[in-house]
């Protein structure tokens, strides 16, 4: 696929810096996209663990009806913070900011993104947002207790630190926008010579589509949040029904962003899947263009369905019917992807290493999540299931079972490239297996609970729901153990793992052409692209080169 990419590896990007500083300053002032990606990895993982611990505490509270470990008010702040952290601090920025940053320029054959300093700024903006979330916990008034949807008028009435917490979400959105602008420009301007749009790896396609959603959707949540803050501060009447405002308009504006946002979460994950399957099946992807265009299609159609979150809110019947119809349409491009992925395994030479196992878990869990999305997309059933645990199960399946699983898949796929070391494969296999079991134990009961009529955001529940809650809570402990194995393996190997070769899996996209870890400017010479992205006939050549 490329020539002249033999990195005459002397120094990796760890040893060379874009600035004169050394130590921690070399990181904090870096404009190197790889270091920035890693900084995101550390901080985002940190917040993920905070969110996960909140989840664990929530499960503990819900092990029995009535008050178990915390009070009702504390519980309400728990699920709000859990939601806010998971959405705004973990899953929306997650894959693009970590793996997008690290691998987008490399896969394009570029030295860096278009605006390296802006890239660093995005990280700082992210950190400011994160700090603001944390500060909001400790100010008088107490942590925000509105749910991550901040519905008016409750969010105007409550005395907790809503304004600061949602302002943090505003700041985080800004970071997201800057990243999106950077990536779109990079894809348009910095592709290596020879890399037309249809020679881009599919990960790039998905990041590109994601970046567009970030640009086009995020401003809407920005303005919505500002309006809520102004409403709280001055009583301007835009949303407050007491002053003539319309709470349903708030819901429209909120979901105009937040539905497309779920595709910000899933699209990069789908891109990673499209990378991993060809590598481990050692054959070209099935239906390259179908997958590429379905990313754009998801980005586009994803914009048309937001009101499926409002089927019971009293919007007009016409709107409900049309939005339901559109919701069903949005499932089609996801289906196209799933079918093409499975077809890519056909007549391959499949080596089920941990990254592929994660991907297989993803396909099953995401399909369950997506297909139950159809259940809630249907008008009749959503009237019953809206705001019940069925929805909670749906979105954990797509978010955690989908994007979360791929977060681990990407980590296990690119870890050797990022850290130049290898992890323990056997332990990794155990990690995936346990994850799959724990996951279903934790979340599947929630589907049944929901259908039985257990509403969400409930601190307390009727006795008949107890058994299923207990199973779910025990599942969360198993999940805890799994997470320790999964993260522990990575953490240990980052320091003590054996040295990884340049191309441990036999991948052919550009990142496997350079050293592990890559040098400061990724390649010693900008590669010229002459092949399709997943052309494995070059593999032998590559192996010779690296000897």
């Amino acid at each position, binding site marked *: 696929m490329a020539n002249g990419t033999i990195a005459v590896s002397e120094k990796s990007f760890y040893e060379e810096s874009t600035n004169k500083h050394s130590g921690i300053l070399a990181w904090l002032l870096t404009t190197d996209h790889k270091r920035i990606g890693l900084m995101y990895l550390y901080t985002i993982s940190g917040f993920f663990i905070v969110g996960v611990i909140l989840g664990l505490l929530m499960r503990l509270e819900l092990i029995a009806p009535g008050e178990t470990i915390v009070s009702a008010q504390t519980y309400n702040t728990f699920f709000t913070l859990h939601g806010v952290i998971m959405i705004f601090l973990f899953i929306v920025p997650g894959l693009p900011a970590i793996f997008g940053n690290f691998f987008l320029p490399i896969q394009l054959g570029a030295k860096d993104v278009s605006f390296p300093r802006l890239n660093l700024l995005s990280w700082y903006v992210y950190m400011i947002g994160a700090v603001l979330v944390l500060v909001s916990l400790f100010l008088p008034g107490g942590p925000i207790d509105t749910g991550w949807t901040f519905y008016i008028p409750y969010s105007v009435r409550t005395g907790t630190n809503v304004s600061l917490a949602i302002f943090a979400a505003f700041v985080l959105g800004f970071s997201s926008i800057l990243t999106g602008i950077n990536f779109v420009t990079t894809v348009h301007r910095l592709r290596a010579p020879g890399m037309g749009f249809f020679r881009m790896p599919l990960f790039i396609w998905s990041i590109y589509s994601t970046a*567009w959603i970030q640009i086009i959707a995020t401003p809407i949540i920005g303005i919505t949040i500002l309006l809520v803050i102004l409403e709280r501060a001055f009583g301007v009447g835009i949303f407050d029904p007491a002053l003539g405002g319309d709470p*349903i308009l708030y819901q429209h504006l909120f979901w*105009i962003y937040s539905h497309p946002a779920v595709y910000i979460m899933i699209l990069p994950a789908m891109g990673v899947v499209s990378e991993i399957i060809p590598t481990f099946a050692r054959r070209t992807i099935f239906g390259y263009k179908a997958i590429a265009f379905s990313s754009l299609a998801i980005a586009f159609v994803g914009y048309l369905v937001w*009101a499926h979150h409002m089927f019971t809110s009293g919007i*007009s*019947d*016409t*709107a409900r019917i049309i939005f339901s119809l559109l919701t069903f349409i949005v499932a089609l491009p996801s289906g196209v992807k799933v079918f093409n992925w499975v077809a890519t395994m056909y007549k391959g030479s499949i080596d089920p290493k941990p990254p592929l196992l994660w991907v297989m878990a993803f396909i099953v869990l995401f399909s369950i999540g997506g297909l139950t999305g159809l259940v809630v997309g249907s008008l009749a059933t959503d009237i019953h299931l809206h705001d019940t645990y069925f929805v909670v199960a749906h979105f954990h399946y797509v978010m955690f079972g989908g994007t979360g699983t791929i977060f681990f898949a990407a980590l296990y796929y690119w870890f050797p490239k990022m850290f130049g070391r290898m992890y323990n494969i056997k332990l990794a296999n155990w990690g995936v297996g346990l994850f799959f079991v724990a996951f279903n134990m934790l979340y599947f009961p929630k589907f049944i609970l929901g259908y039985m009529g257990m509403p969400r955001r409930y601190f307390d529940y009727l006795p008949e729901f107890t058994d299923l809650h207990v199973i779910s809570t025990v599942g969360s402990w198993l999940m805890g153990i799994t997470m320790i194995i999964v993260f522990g393996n990575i953490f240990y190997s980052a320091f003590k793992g054996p040295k990884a070769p340049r191309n441990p899996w036999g991948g052919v996209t550009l990142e496997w052409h350079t050293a592990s870890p890559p040098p400061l400017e990724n390649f010693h010479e900008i590669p010229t692209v002459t092949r399709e992205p997943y052309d494995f006939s070059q593999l032998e050549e590559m192996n010779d080169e690296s000897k």
Partner: protein
Amino acid sequence: MHQEETNHHSTGYGTYILVWLALIALTSITVTVAGIDFGMVALAIAMLIAAIKSALVINIFMHIKYEEPIFKVFLLVSGFTIVVIFVLTFLDVVNR
């Protein structure tokens, strides 16, 4: 990427001043028309004039006319997004 590529066209001071005159003229038209009672059409006329004004600004002052085609595609995407948001929201609001 060289300067010449971005600095192509033949806009002169004169063009800009003409555009400015047109903008001022359109402003006075829209103010005058607003004084007359056209009922429901008034809003449509005002928006039409605003659209013409912004087309002038975008095309000439902001040079979109002379940029690479991809810029125009971008512009369409964002314009289209706004239209979608309006249409779908009003689907609810009008039928309530």
